[in-house]
C-alpha cells in the first residue's frame, strides 16, 4: 500500500513539470492539427465536389506555366487587369471557385479570394496548403 502511495506521489510530482512544459515550453510539442482559416477548404473536400469547380491559380505566370492544377486559370494581383477578363468569361454564377497559391504560408490566394468576393463572386474558397497540397495528394 505504501509503495502504491509512493508511486502515485512520484507520478503526481512528474505531472506538474510535464504539464508546465506542455503548456509553456518554447519547444513544446504540437498537440493539435492546424485548423482551417476562414474561407479555407481541404483538398479532399474539393475533390469530393467533382468537376464543377473553377480552379484559380494565384501564383506568378512563371509558376503557372511550369505546372498547375488541370483546368486552372491564372489570376494574380500583379496582372489583375489583364487576367480578370479571362476569369469573367470562364466563371459561371454559383460555380465553386477555389483559389490556390504555392503553400500554406502564402497569402496570395487569400488576397485574390477577397478581391473576387468584393466583386460579388461567390462561393469562393482558398485551398489549404495550396499547390503543395495538390502536388502531395495521394
Amino acid at each position, binding site marked *: 500500500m505504501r509503495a502504491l502511495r509512493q508511486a502515485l506521489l512520484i507520478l503526481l510530482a512528474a505531472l506538474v513539470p510535464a504539464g508546465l512544459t506542455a503548456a509553456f515550453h*518554447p519547444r513544446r510539442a504540437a498537440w493539435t492539427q492546424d485548423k482551417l482559416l476562414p474561407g479555407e477548404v481541404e483538398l479532399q473536400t474539393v475533390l469530393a465536389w467533382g468537376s464543377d469547380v473553377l480552379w484559380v491559380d494565384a501564383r506568378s505566370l512563371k509558376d503557372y506555366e511550369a505546372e498547375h492544377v488541370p483546368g486552372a486559370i491564372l489570376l494574380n494581383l500583379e496582372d489583375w487587369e489583364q487576367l480578370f477578363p479571362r476569369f469573367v468569361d470562364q466563371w459561371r*454564377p454559383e460555380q465553386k471557385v477555389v483559389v490556390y497559391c504555392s503553400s500554406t504560408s502564402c497569402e496570395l490566394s487569400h488576397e485574390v479570394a477577397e478581391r473576387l468576393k468584393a466583386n460579388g463572386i461567390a462561393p469562393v474558397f482558398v485551398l489549404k496548403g495550396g499547390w503543395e497540397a495538390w502536388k502531395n495528394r495521394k
Partner: protein
Amino acid sequence: MRTLLFLLWAFAGSAFGQLAWENPEQTFNSKPQDASVVAKYRFTNNGKESIKIENVKTSCGCTTAALTKTEYAPGESGEIEAKFIFAGRTGRQEKAIMVTTSVAPKEPTVLRLVVNIEEPVKIQPEIVFWRVGDQPDPKTIHIAVADDSPAKIASVESDNPAVKVQLKEVKPGKEYEVQVTPASVTQPGGATLLIRTDGDNPQTKYAYVRIK
C-alpha cells in the same frame, strides 16, 4: 511547493533575454504614385547573452527582409528592413514578418506591417452580371477617385449597344456611379465598359457586364 516555485522561476527565465523591439507594428499610408514602402524594425538585445537571429520569414513573397548580421551581443542594437512591393495590391494590406531567435526557436516574434494603398481610380464592382431569365433591372458600378489624384472621369462607354450605361457624378471629381442596363437577359451575352479618365495622364479602366 519549493519545487513548484523553482519550476515557475525556471520557466519565467526563458521569457527574458529576448530582443526588445522599438516599433513592432508599423502603419503606412501610400500615395497613388507609390510602388512600395520600406519599414525598419529596430531592436536591442536586452539580455545577458548573445542572441542569434536564426530566421526571418515573411507572410508572403511580396515582403523582403534584409539583415546585415545575425548575432547580437548584450546591449547591441540592430535593424530588420522589410520592403513591401505593392504589385497591384490596393486597400488595407496587413503583412507579418516572423523573426526566430536562438532564445525561442519555436516562438517567433511577429512584426506587423500595415499599409493603406490608395488606388487612383477604384471601380467597385468590376463585374455586374445577370442570370439568363432574370429581370433586366439596372445595376450600379461605383467609381471613386483618390483625393490626391488630379484625374476625373471623362466618360464611360459600352462596347455593346445592347448594354446601356449612364454616368452620374455623385461628388464632383471624386465619386461617380455608372448605371448599367441590358436591353435583354434572355440569352447569354455581355459587354466591356471603358472608363476613361482625363488629366495629364489619361487612362482607360475596365468593368465587365455578363449575362450567364
